[in-house]
């Protein structure tokens, strides 16, 4: 059997194992181990498993994962999240499905303080979902909004994916960051529009019970200030720290967590062992996410070893397809790979093949990067392996909430992202004008 055939078989076996309910990380480890054993031998597979388990996670940037999770939990338990949504709800109370849109807006703002989407997903699943459910929204819709808008975390700067792309394509990190702002706003608007259209024409998909939010009294100015102050202080700390030149992104995570801790202490929210409980929760969410990242890294390395990605590239990118045909095929491959492996792994596997072709096709490489990042992020939302969805499931810890329910809830937002890709393809200036100023 050739390496490519082993790679194809491994993908098929992985999909089967995931479908019949084996823990995904375990399935990836097992399939990757088997794959490398066949491609090379058991000894290499054994040593590769041992080193990938440590070196794939030994990354200072990943330290933001527990820190932002911790910040999210503290923000939640101290009631800051609920207060924030009271403010948003008040502001948008006359708008149909206003809280859904408020979630998108809050996510867009939060995206400017986090560089990874799973952080957004874990924070807003704690903050926004209970609020939306309390206000009569469907659980599936509420988690779908959070999963969908969590992708803004890696589109609006700072962004881990933009850094990965910038390094591979030899583009400026600063420029790549700027290039995400326009598309981030576009996507936020498309998400809000999606929510509006759903609430208008398919209300049964949005609301579990009809609560006329507009009848609720709005918050007074004093109340709005009291409820809005803590989150503003936190964002001031993180954003001010970042853009004032005091903090790098990982430090902003730590400062945010520390600031959230101070707020929780001031609000006396941490008694009766709740701080310990939060720290334990932080550990478990971090593990369930990073264990997947580790296993996914092993899987992508096994695939790279099999030669499957390169063979796919040859088949798809050579031949008489032309630049636009190449782009469509490339994005399709990115989205398909997104079903089974994680964002960074997709970029690591595909970009070395795609970048030279894109350059030969004469594409603007900043625009190409934005297209790549948006397409890669669709994978956060698509089954069977959707990291944002799993993060929400893990952070919610609600036995009644099925993963399938969340995946169904994200589908409208996947469609919105596909629409965004089309718009970004037709109007490259949305991505490039700020970056090329």
């Amino acid at each position, binding site marked *: 059997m050739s*390496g490519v055939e082993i790679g194809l078989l491994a993908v098929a076996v992985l999909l089967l194992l995931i479908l019949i309910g084996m823990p995904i990380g375990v399935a990836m480890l097992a399939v990757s181990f088997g794959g490398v054993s066949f491609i*090379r031998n058991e*000894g*290499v597979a054994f*040593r*590769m498993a041992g*080193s990938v388990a440590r*070196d*794939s996670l*030994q*990354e200072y940037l990943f330290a933001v994962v527990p820190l932002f999770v911790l910040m999210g939990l503290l923000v939640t338990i101290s009631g800051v999240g609920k207060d924030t949504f009271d403010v948003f709800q008040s502001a948008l109370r006359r708008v149909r499905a206003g809280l859904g849109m408020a979630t998108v807006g809050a996510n867009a703002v939060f995206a400017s303080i986090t560089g990874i989407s799973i952080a957004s997903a874990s924070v807003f699943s704690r903050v926004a979902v209970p609020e939306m459910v309390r206000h009569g929204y469907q659980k599936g819709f509420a988690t779908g909004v959070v999963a969908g808008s969590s992708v803004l975390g890696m589109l609006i700067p*700072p962004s881990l994916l933009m*850094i990965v792309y*910038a*390094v*591979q394509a*030899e*583009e*400026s*990190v*600063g*420029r790549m*960051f700027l290039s995400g702002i326009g598309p981030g706003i576009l996507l936020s608007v498309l998400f809000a529009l999606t929510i509006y259209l759903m609430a208008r024409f398919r209300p049964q998909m949005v609301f579990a019970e009809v609560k006329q939010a507009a009848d609720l009294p709005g918050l007074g100015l004093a109340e709005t200030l009291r409820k809005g102050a803590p989150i503003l202080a936190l964002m001031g700390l993180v954003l001010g720290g*970042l*853009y*004032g*030149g*005091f*903090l*790098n*992104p990982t430090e902003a995570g730590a400062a945010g967590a520390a600031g959230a801790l101070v707020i929780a202490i001031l609000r006396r929210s941490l008694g009766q062992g709740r701080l310990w409980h939060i720290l334990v929760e932080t550990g478990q969410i971090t593990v369930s996410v990073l264990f997947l990242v580790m296993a996914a890294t092993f899987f*992508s*390395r096994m695939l*790279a*070893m099999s*030669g499957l*990605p*390169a063979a796919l590239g040859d088949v798809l990118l050579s031949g008489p397809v032309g630049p636009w045909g190449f782009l469509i095929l490339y994005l399709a491959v990115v989205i398909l790979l997104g079903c089974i492996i994680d964002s960074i792994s997709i970029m*690591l*596997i595909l*970009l*070395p093949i795609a970048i030279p072709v894109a350059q030969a096709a004469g594409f603007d490489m900043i625009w190409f990067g934005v297209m790549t990042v948006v397409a890669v992020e669709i994978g956060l939302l698509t089954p069977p392996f959707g990291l944002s969805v799993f993060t929400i499931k893990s952070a919610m810890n609600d036995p009644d909430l099925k993963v399938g329910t969340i995946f169904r809830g994200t589908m409208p937002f996947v469609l919105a992202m596909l629409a965004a890709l089309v718009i970004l393809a037709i109007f490259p200036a949305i991505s490039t004008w700020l970056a090329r100023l």
Partner: protein
Amino acid sequence: AQENIDLTIASSHPTAIPWVGMMQTHFMAETDRLLAETGTYKITWNEAFGGALYKANATLSSVEEGVTDIGWVFSLLEGAELPLSQVSSYAPFATNNPPVQLAVMQELIDTVPELKAEWEGHNLVVLGLTGTDSYDLYAKKPIASLADLNGMKISAPGVLGTWLSGTGANPVDGSLTTYYTDIQTGVSDGVLSLALGVFPAKIYEVAPYVTKVQMGTAFSGAIAINKDSWDALPAEVQEAMKKAGAYYTEAHGKDLLERPVAVMQKIVEAGATQTPPVAVADLPQDQREAWVNVLPDLAGTWAKDMDAKGLPGSTVMNAYMAGLKARGESPIRDWKAE
């Protein structure tokens, strides 16, 4: 009939990095060329460049463990595993001549058994060597003298931080992917880096004042092949790879002399229209001397630390400096171990 040999060749960095790209254009191509002369063997390369198989934090273990057959080992990040190979990092300002430096390192690997063992003990065979271009200062403001450095925050991770000791500048942690944002936002005021790294990362946009300090080049690693893979190769292929490795080292060293000049020109051109535009200035020789002489005894301390671990640190340091001088280099500080 021609016999086919499958080999995986990999790197943590993309082929856009010159010495990684030269693995294709020089090492692989020269091996293929030599083998084609007899036509007995043909290598089918499975290329996994750009971090597909492992990241920068596992370049040594991945070749050692056979994750790839051949790979670029980034020795600068392997201080604990390849301690003696760090010698050039503890003798800054010693040379700005990569071909000479690589030749001296090759000689040391061939003649100091402990240095050779430090590589071969990791189950690999060294084929070719790699180095850096010269470290210079890229900053937000012009640096005319050593005194201008006082109080500045300079991105200089790891051992580079020691190259600032005594200058009054404070080292700030970071990496090539973080420098741009760090300088832009004020986390640091500039960076000690290489033209070959600054240009693709566009750091000159935020740090337009280029001061050519010529702090010296560093030995950065090797193209190496897993020993088990090596032993399985026919003698003719081994011979071809040895030759291709030597050819690679020579071509790469030469490339490190020429390419940074061209790249610095590109930096000037690319940064000509920004405000403020890129301005390149040499640090005056007396200020370079002042800089290197204000540094603590980096070489002596390192050698003593190595000796204390039972490694021939003093021997390697003195042989390194002697090797440079024997090839016509005149280091402005005569680093030595007692």
